[in-house]
C-alpha cells in the first residue's frame, strides 16, 4: 500500500507537470505535429477506402460533419463511417474482439470506450504502432492521463483520445421549483459545495416532494463520486498499476459505496437502473430531479427527455472537486490493409478540427487541449438546457483532472460491483450484506 500511495503521488506530480507543458503547447497556437503527420504530401497514388467503426446511441461520436469535411478534401482517402450499435458492452466490444481474433472484419479505425482500454492495452498484438506514422508527436495535445491510457503495456502508442467526460450535475428546474428550491444554476451550484450539502438538499427536496426521486438511482451517483475519489487515490479505481485487484482496499471505492448507501437509505433515489426503459421513461416524466452529468450525458438527456422537456433541465456544478466519467479513444487494428492512411484519418479525427466538429455536432467535449481552447468549444451554450454554458462548465471540470488507470478487467469488475449496488438500492440485496457481497463479486469478476 505504501507503494501505491507513493506511485500515486509520483503520477500526480507527473500529471501536473504535463498539464503545465500542454498548457504551454496550447499557448503556441497551432499544434504543428498534427498537421505535419497527415496532409496532402502523403496522399497515396491509389484511392483507398478507410472504414471507421464507432458505437453509441443518438449523437454519440457525431462524426458525420467531420467525415464529410475530410472526404471533400481528400479524394484519395475516402472514409466510410459506420456506427455499429449503441450497445458498447453487449454488442460492440464482443464483436470487435471476435474480429480481432479472426483477423478480419474490424474497421481501419475503431473507437473504444474507456472501460475496455485496460483490456485493449493487454492485447498489443492487435493494434498498429501509431508512432510509426509520426503520431507520437501529438503528446502535447492531450492531458496526461488521456495520452497514457493510449500507450499499452509494452510502451507502444496504439490509441489517441477523442472526447472526455468531465463532470457536472444536471437538474430539473420544474421539480426544483415545485420543491421550493432555487432554480438558477448559480444558486443551485451554491446549494451543494460538497456531497454532504447535496445530501441535505436532497432531504429538503424529499420533504417537499416525497414521491419524486432526488437522484435516479445508484449507478450515476456512484460513478460521479467515484470519479472524484479515484483522483484522490492516485487515479486507481479497481486495480493498481500492477493489475492487482484493490476493490476492497481502495478507500475511494468504499467512500463512493458508503455515499450511495446513505442516499439510498435516506430514500432519496428513484431506485432506477441506468440505461433501462424505466429510467428513460422517468427522465421523460420527471421521475427524478438530479443526475450526475458527464458532458456526453447531456446528449443522452436531451435525446431521451424529448422536446416536451426542453428547458426543464439545466446544468449546475458537481458537488466536490472535478472528476471524469467516460470518454473514448481511436485505434488502428493491425489487420487494416491501409494502416498509414488509417493513421492519417485517426490523426485528423483526434486533432483539433475533428474534435471541434464533433463537439459542434454532438456536444462531445474534446480531450484535445487545442480543441478545448477553440471559441466554438470554450464559449459554447446548450440550448436544450436553458442555454447553460456547457463549454465553460466542462472546461473548468476537466482542467484539473487527475490521471485514472484502468485495469485489464476494469469493465467486468465495474459491471459486477455496480450490480450489487443497484440490487441494494432496489431491495434485492440487504445493505447489511452489501459491502461483503460487493467485494466478493468484484473478486469473482476479476477471475
Amino acid at each position, binding site marked *: 500500500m505504501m507503494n501505491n500511495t507513493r506511485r500515486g503521488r509520483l503520477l500526480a506530480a507527473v500529471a501536473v507537470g504535463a498539464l503545465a507543458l500542454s498548457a504551454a503547447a496550447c499557448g503556441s497556437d497551432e499544434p504543428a505535429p498534427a498537421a505535419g503527420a497527415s496532409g496532402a504530401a502523403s496522399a497515396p497514388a491509389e484511392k483507398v477506402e478507410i472504414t471507421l467503426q464507432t458505437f453509441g446511441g443518438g449523437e454519440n461520436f457525431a462524426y458525420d460533419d467531420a467525415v464529410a469535411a475530410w472526404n471533400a478534401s481528400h479524394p484519395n482517402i475516402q472514409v466510410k463511417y459506420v456506427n455499429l450499435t449503441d450497445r458498447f458492452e*453487449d454488442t460492440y466490444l464482443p464483436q470487435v474482439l*471476435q474480429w480481432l*481474433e479472426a483477423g478480419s472484419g474490424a474497421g481501419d479505425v475503431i473507437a473504444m470506450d474507456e472501460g475496455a482500454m485496460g483490456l485493449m492495452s493487454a492485447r498489443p498484438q492487435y493494434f498498429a504502432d501509431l508512432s510509426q506514422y509520426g503520431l507520437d508527436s501529438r503528446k502535447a495535445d492531450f492531458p496526461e492521463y488521456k495520452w497514457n491510457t493510449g500507450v499499452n503495456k509494452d510502451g507502444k502508442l496504439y490509441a489517441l483520445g477523442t472526447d472526455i467526460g468531465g463532470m457536472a450535475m444536471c437538474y430539473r428546474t420544474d421539480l426544483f421549483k415545485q420543491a421550493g428550491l432555487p432554480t438558477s444554476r448559480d444558486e443551485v451550484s451554491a446549494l451543494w459545495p460538497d456531497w454532504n450539502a447535496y445530501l441535505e438538499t436532497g432531504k429538503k427536496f424529499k420533504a417537499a416532494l416525497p414521491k419524486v426521486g432526488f437522484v435516479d438511482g445508484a449507478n450515476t451517483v456512484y460513478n460521479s463520486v467515484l470519479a472524484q475519489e479515484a483522483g484522490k487515490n492516485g487515479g486507481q479505481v479497481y486495480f493498481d498499476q500492477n493489475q492487482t485487484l484493490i476493490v476492497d482496499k481502495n478507500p475511494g471505492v468504499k467512500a463512493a459505496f458508503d455515499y450511495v448507501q446513505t442516499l439510498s437509505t435516506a430514500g432519496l433515489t428513484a431506485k432506477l437502473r441506468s440505461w433501462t*426503459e*424505466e429510467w428513460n421513461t422517468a427522465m421523460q416524466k420527471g421521475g427524478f430531479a438530479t443526475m450526475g452529468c458527464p458532458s456526453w450525458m447531456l446528449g443522452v438527456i436531451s435525446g431521451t427527455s424529448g422536446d416536451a422537456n426542453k428547458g426543464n433541465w439545466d446544468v449546475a456544478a458537481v458537488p466536490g472537486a472535478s472528476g471524469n466519467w467516460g470518454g473514448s479513444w481511436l485505434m488502428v487494428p493491425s489487420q487494416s490493409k491501409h494502416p498509414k492512411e488509417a493513421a492519417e484519418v485517426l490523426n485528423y479525427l483526434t486533432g483539433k478540427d475533428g474534435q471541434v466538429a464533433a463537439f459542434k455536432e454532438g456536444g462531445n467535449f474534446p480531450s484535445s487541449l487545442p480543441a478545448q481552447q477553440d471559441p466554438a468549444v470554450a464559449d459554447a451554450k446548450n440550448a436544450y438546457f436553458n442555454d447553460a454554458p456547457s463549454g465553460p462548465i466542462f472546461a473548468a471540470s476537466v482542467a484539473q483532472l487527475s490521471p485514472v488507470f484502468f485495469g485489464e478487467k476494469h469493465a*467486468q469488475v465495474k459491471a459486477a460491483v455496480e450490480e450489487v449496488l443497484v440490487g441494494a438500492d*432496489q*431491495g*434485492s440485496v440487504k445493505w447489511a450484506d452489501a459491502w461483503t457481497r460487493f467485494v466478493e463479486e468484484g473478486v*469473482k469478476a476479476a477471475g
Partner: protein
Amino acid sequence: MSLDVDAGHRTRMLPSNQRRHARPPGPRRLLSWLDLRAAPYFFVSPYFVLFAIFGIFPLIFTLWVSLHDWQLAGDKTFIGMENYTELLADDKFWNSVVNTVGIFMIATVPQLLLALLLANALNKKLRGRLVLRLSVLAPLITSVVAVAVVFTQLYGRDYGLVNWLLSLFGVDAIHWQNEKWTSWVAIATMVDWRWTGYNAIIYLAAMQTIPKDLYEAAAIDGASPRRQFWGITVPLLKPTIIFTVIVSTIGGFTLFAEPVMFGAGLMTGGTTGQFQTVAMFIVKEGFRDFQYGYAAAAAWILFLLILISALINFALVRGLGRSR
C-alpha cells in the same frame, strides 16, 4: 402399370399381394436390392453432410476450447479439465441451472396442457376455422425482440400496464425483476404467449390423423367428451407429445432472448442473478468476461443437462399412455 401414372396417394388403396409375381428378375433385382440398401442413406445424407460441415466442426472446436484457459482475443493455455472442475464448484453456474429448470417448469407444463386443450377445442366443428387457427398461430409472427419489448413494458414497475391493473385492486406496485418468483412468472408468460398456439397447431395436425370413427364409436358407447379426450386423443398423440416435450425441453434449457430483454439487455439476469439462465451464463462468461474456454465448458455441461432432462421427460411421457 398403375404405378407409372400419377396415381398420387391413391396407390395405398391397391391390394398388396396382387402383383407379387410381376417382380422384375435378374439385374433389375440387383438395382432394387441397391435401392433397398442404399436409398435410406441417400435420403438422410443431405442432413448429415450439412451437419458435418456446420455442426461437427463448431462442436469439436468448442470441446477443444473448453480444455483451455482461452481468452477471447487473448492468451490460450491448455489446462485440461480445470474449467469443468471449477464450473461444478461455481455457485453462480448452479444458480443459473436452478433458474433455467424453474422457468422451464412453470412455463412448459401449463403451456403444453393449454395447447392440448386448445387443439382439442380447435378440432371441434366451428365457423371460420381458418381464421381461428391462424389467430392462434399469430404470436409466432412476432419476433422475440418485439415480444420482449412489449412485455417488458407491460411488466414495468412504475408505468407498466400490469401494475396499473393491479393497482385498481389496491395491490402495490410489484418490481417484477426483483424477486425470483415474480421474474420467473413474467418470463414464463412471454414464452407461453409465443409458443402455446404453435404447439396447439402441432397437436391439431396430429389429432386429425386420428380416425373419426374411433370417437363416434366411443360416443355411441356413451363415453363423455372428457373420457374420449383422455382415453383416445392423448394416448394416440403420444409420439407428438413426446416430440413437443423434447423440443420444449431443449427450448427451455437454451432460454435466452426473453430473460435478456426482460433484464434490460444484460446477461446478469437481475441484480443477484434472479433470472440468469444457463445460456445467459455462457454468453456472460464468453462474450462479456471473454473467458471463452470457461463458457465452452459450460456449454458442454448444458448439453449434458439437456440430454439428461430430455431422457427423464421422455420416460415420463412414455408412461403417460400406459396408465390408461
